[in-house]
């Protein structure tokens, strides 16, 4: 149950910390620190910095061209990473498309797609959700009809993060309408420059544009872009889910946000505010509990055990804590949060209290955390069924 770090592990953690600190551009750090909007170039530029050490695809095994870190090193990497105001790297290629390809893809697919993901050359997005089918994949409607060596794809995807920036989309489609949904779904990789694809932006309540609708109208996708067997897409999607939940605690990021809020409170001369101090301490302890839940689960997967559905608890608590922090920041800055402008969020305009500038937008934006990646209600359903075995 104990987690003692070897000297080699400690040296690795120091290397990560030093490299990131030395290579994180000041302007980018400032944008992240103050919750300003990042551009595609902000992301890809930073991901190039990571890729230079092969730390963009940081979770990949050596066979897939990744760094082949141990679980412990992964944990130390995340901790060092989260401690600095680094952008959260785009996950759809490295954490989703990549693992499915190197686990279920054939050799040709691996050679064709993995280097572009690992080296941050291709920008990926995820085509799962559809209108009327969010956390419930059984309700998918997008069809792919086999025509010779192509699929003809028709349908609509929604909530597609960064489809507007993406080169590729991995996509769940229905290839068999006769069988029950779990058996008729396939996993396709679609070139976003294919004819018939239209991307329409969805603006969110924080004024941001990261979601999109993607319309697929007679899009022809080569059969060789299908991963694994036809009709097995559900299996691959499920395989991803547990990885996703494990990485969704956001504890390292929350730890950083907490220390930023504490620094802001000091800068505002609010250290004597007993209520604020209590809320900070309370959240700090909640976060500590989350970190140690994560460590224990990690210790078990070091021992070879798959984290499995238990990881849902990390997603639930991690997102609750992150939301509470985003609310606390609004409460701390109170009326200073009123001076809101797109120009500030786009880093064009300075602010007398920059920590307040993005507070409301972040609070609103973070509402998504308990909705996406399998809503927290779905996570609780998973735990009730699979861990508590309640019928």
């Amino acid at each position: 149950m104990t987690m003692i770090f070897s000297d080699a592990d400690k040296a690795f953690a120091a290397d990560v910390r030093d490299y990131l600190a030395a290579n994180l551009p000041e302007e980018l750090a400032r944008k992240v620190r103050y919750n300003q909007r990042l551009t595609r170039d902000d992301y890809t530029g930073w991901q190039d910095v990571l890729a230079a050490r092969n730390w963009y695809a940081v979770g990949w095994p050596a066979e897939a061209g990744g760094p082949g870190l141990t679980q412990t090193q992964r944990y130390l990497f995340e901790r060092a990473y989260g401690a600095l105001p680094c952008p959260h790297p785009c996950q759809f290629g490295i954490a989703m498309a990549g693992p499915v390809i190197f686990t279920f893809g054939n050799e040709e697919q691996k050679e064709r797609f993995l280097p572009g993901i690992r080296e941050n050359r291709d920008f990926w997005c995820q085509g799962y959700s559809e209108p009327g089918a969010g956390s419930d994949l059984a309700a998918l409607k997008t069809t792919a009809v086999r025509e010779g060596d192509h699929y003809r794809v028709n349908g609509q995807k929604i909530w597609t993060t960064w489809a507007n920036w993406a080169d590729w989309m991995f996509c769940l489609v229905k290839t068999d309408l006769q069988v029950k949904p779990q058996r008729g779904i396939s996993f396709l990789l679609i070139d976003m420059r294919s004819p018939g694809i239209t991307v329409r932006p969805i603006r969110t309540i924080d004024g941001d544009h990261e979601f999109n609708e993607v319309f697929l109208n007679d899009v022809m996708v080569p059969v060789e872009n299908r991963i694994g067997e036809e009709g097995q897409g559900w299996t691959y999607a499920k395989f991803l889910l547990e990885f996703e939940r494990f990485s969704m605690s956001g504890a390292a990021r929350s730890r950083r946000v907490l220390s930023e809020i504490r620094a802001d409170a000091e800068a505002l001369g609010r250290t004597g505010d007993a209520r604020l101090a209590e809320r900070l301490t309370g959240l700090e302890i909640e976060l500590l509990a989350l970190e140690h839940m994560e460590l224990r689960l990690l210790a078990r997967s070091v021992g070879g055990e798959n984290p499995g559905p238990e990881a849902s608890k990390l997603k639930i608590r991690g997102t609750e804590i992150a939301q509470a922090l985003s609310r606390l920041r609004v409460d701390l800055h109170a009326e200073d949060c009123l001076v809101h402008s797109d120009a500030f969020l786009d880093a064009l305009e300075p602010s007398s209290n920059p920590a307040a500038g993005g507070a409301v937008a972040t609070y609103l934006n973070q509402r998504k955390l308990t909705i996406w990646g399998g809503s927290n209600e779905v996570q609780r359903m998973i735990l009730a069924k699979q861990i508590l075995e309640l019928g």
Partner: protein
Amino acid sequence: MSHLDDEIHMLAETVDRYVADRAGGRASGGDAWTELADLGWLLLPYPEAAGGLGLGAAGVSAVMQGHGRGLLPTPYLPFIVMAGGALARCPRAADALAAVMAGERRVAAGFAVGRPAAITAEPDGAGWRLGGTQPHVLAVDEADAVLVAARPGAEGGTGLFLVGLDLPGVTVETYPLPDGRRAGRVILNGVALPAADRLDDGDAAALLGDVETATLLAAAAENLGAMQVLYEETLAYAKLRKQFGRPIGSFQSLQFRLVDMWIKLDEVRSLVASAAAAGDGPEAAQLAVAAWIQSLWSGRSIGEEAIQLHGAIGMTEEHAAGRYVKRILVNELLFGAPERHFARYRSTMQG
């Protein structure tokens, strides 16, 4: 039912129609403020002796609930409840109040709830010279004057000064609030005023306290209107939207959360109704402050639940949920979080 109840009931129906017309695109297209003047809403809260309709807090509450339900952009709260409310309590402001009631003059509120005056006033011959910056003045870009609270020189207390925005030394910098309403910083740089433009009777602190209470109740009523829509939309959505082959409203955990939203809504509604009906005096002030605090407790929770239960659709700009949530949040930032008003609440408690 009393005569007042009758009038309030009729007013509430007018407000409902007005909101429905605007929501249905049947707005006149004319100047919204002139519409409000034509409806008589600008006269509504003030005493009949002053030329008003004497509907007081009950009337304001009805109009503000409509502002919340319809997310109306008209600055009724700052112009009529705050600035007008202060003018109505100044014995020497009858002319200014008359102009406000007639819709001829639009006076913004240059003071903040629960904050000391940000402006200073130095005696200057027979008159005054004002300096300082008042932040977050709501809808100042629609106003032609601002009623500022200022600390007058050595004499202490608080003075109320009517400052035309076209006077030399007045600068206004406007910006959008997170919910799309507009506010501005009013910067006074040695603005010279004749003695007659100081409207209070020596110290405006007490009357401003009353105006603050009225403001909190009006803002609570606006929040109530907004969260009523959030609740109704969420309930309707839960009955319609299917997941795992069933309406999500058939899942018991969601049912219980919707019940709790309904109760939280009812808590605000009950306190706003009682506060609006309570007239003046300490019990009325206590209810007003409680209504405001409860409107934030309930409003946060109903707002967050509304977005969560709508799922991703509730996160979009196209969907109304976010706009209502932002209205309530901005009201909180403008008028102060619950705990900031606990001391005020305790000071109104009897026994």
